[in-house]
């Protein structure tokens, strides 16, 4: 599995209120919600993003609310992977549970810039910045989490016997 595209770069502490403002949360329709993705810090994001693009940010990405709408709208907007120095814990869980690819890699998150061409190989955890011809290696997920991702999300990973 791979993602490849151009980079949208943000800073530290990108919170769930800027990823998807609560004023739009009167619906749970991901398509409708995704038209407001990142609106309060980057009004142009939704017009510029293409399928497979990469979001890069600093420390504590996704802090704030538990709203799963946040990783959902990022996924729905076409972003193929989020790379950050660290993720807030509920966002981290939610991303895994819904199958949005995320990688923690401090060096990559520091050096990659807006507009760079980047690819990510999920099998190896290798992030390649084609603009400056440099590769980085992100840490691997624990096996338990890899299993959730492989099965297509948390609910799909639950034994069918309980249904």
């Amino acid at each position, binding site marked *: 599995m791979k993602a490849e595209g151009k980079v949208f770069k943000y800073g530290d502490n990108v919170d769930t209120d800027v990823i998807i403002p609560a004023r739009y949360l009167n619906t749970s329709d991901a398509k409708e919600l995704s038209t407001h993705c990142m609106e309060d810090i980057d009004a142009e994001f939704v017009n510029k993003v293409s399928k497979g693009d990469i979001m890069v940010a600093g420390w504590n990405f996704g802090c704030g609310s*538990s709203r799963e709408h946040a990783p959902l709208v990022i996924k729905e907007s076409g972003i193929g992977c989020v790379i950050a120095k660290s993720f*807030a814990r509920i966002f981290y869980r939610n991303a895994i549970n819904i199958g949005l690819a995320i990688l923690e890699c401090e060096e990559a998150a520091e050096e990659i810039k807006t507009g760079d061409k980047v690819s990510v190989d999920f099998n190896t955890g290798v992030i390649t910045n084609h603009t400056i011809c440099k590769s980085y290696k992100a840490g691997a997920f624990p096996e338990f989490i890899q299993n959730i991702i492989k099965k297509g999300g948390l609910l799909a990973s639950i034994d069918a016997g*309980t249904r």
Partner: protein
Amino acid sequence: MGMTLTQKILASHAGLEKVTAGELINAKLDIVLGNDITTPVAINEFEKNGFKEVFDKDKIAIVLDHFVPNKDIKAAEQSKKCREFSCRNCISHFYDVGKMGIEHALLPEQGVVTAGDLIIGADSHTCTYGALGAFSTGVGSTDMAAGMATGYGWFKVPSAIKFNLSGKLPQNTSGKDVILTIIGKIGVDGALYKSMEFFGDGIKNLSMDDRLCICNMAIEAGAKNGIFPVDDITLEYMKGRTERPPVIYEADDDAIYDEIIDIDLSKITPTVSCPHLPENTKDADELNSIKIDQVVIGSCTNGRMEDMEAAYKVLSGKKIADGVRCIIIPATMDIYRECIERGYVTAFIDAGVVVSTPTCGPCLGGYMGILAEGERCIATTNRNFVGRMGHPKSEVYLSSPLTAAASAVKGYITSFKSE
């Protein structure tokens, strides 16, 4: 090597003798919570994946609190979806308009959560119930759906920061000033993935409302949970209230902590978090030049009875400053009624305040007090991110109810000074 208070609760619910930080476990859930924003997403996932019924109708709590009484048609559709699901599954802890309150004030008040519980909630402030000596943490809607289906959840066992509290709070401060001070010290990711465990001689000087407020904002330091040990104050609060008997856990004497931070409560001052992060703390009186347009007193952080008492203490017989709108929101119907019976609501109205029925509304910029471009609010809520209470170019300052009410009277940010 011993276990922390949090680790003790997790081990017991995972059926294990011992757990260590970093270990991934599957643990039994006592309560699974959702609200009118997060539950519809959970219902979609639950049904899409073919689950037919919930694991235990008595262990699920669904509270309509964010956008109720419904602010618009779409919000009404979301509430309807929660209502129909709750009815179909005979959910015993379903709280609709008239019975509802802000979830994290309501569940402890109604005795739905108790000491020793393991609770997940599809709302980040679920960490509030740690005040009762429970392990309680916020998760997303898919986790809620999985919890409703199986009664189990996966957790990475956290390490902990121990806060050693001593002394007694000065008169013009409260639990809110304690937690804002701590977040100012350690930062919005200072406790990322960790437990914040509160111990020390000083905790006997903190009321349940103070403790609930402190644990409520553990998430604003990135923590997985906040927790207090059970003492006489907790037992007194839970007496005759909790549906299930409390189970008391204690941290091992040789528990390992990542860090121990001493907090002298007597040194706490009225504290305000400036835009746009809760860690941007300053002394309230350093901000006297900041004029305000709106004041909100309420939310899951500060809508409890002691918060209403603080507002009354400041506002009784006073007037809200010209050009300032002040909104007070008691967090539950019981608190709302108590405010009426004690004459607080009349005093608030006489001061020029509008008093709302319980709702999360303004805290997350939903409704009931949205800010226009360039407007500024001091609020007893929990987040001051960009656009949190309305326009992306509006500003939110976070404070205690005493500071917010004192600021409402002056028209600029100030601490409360008794006369």
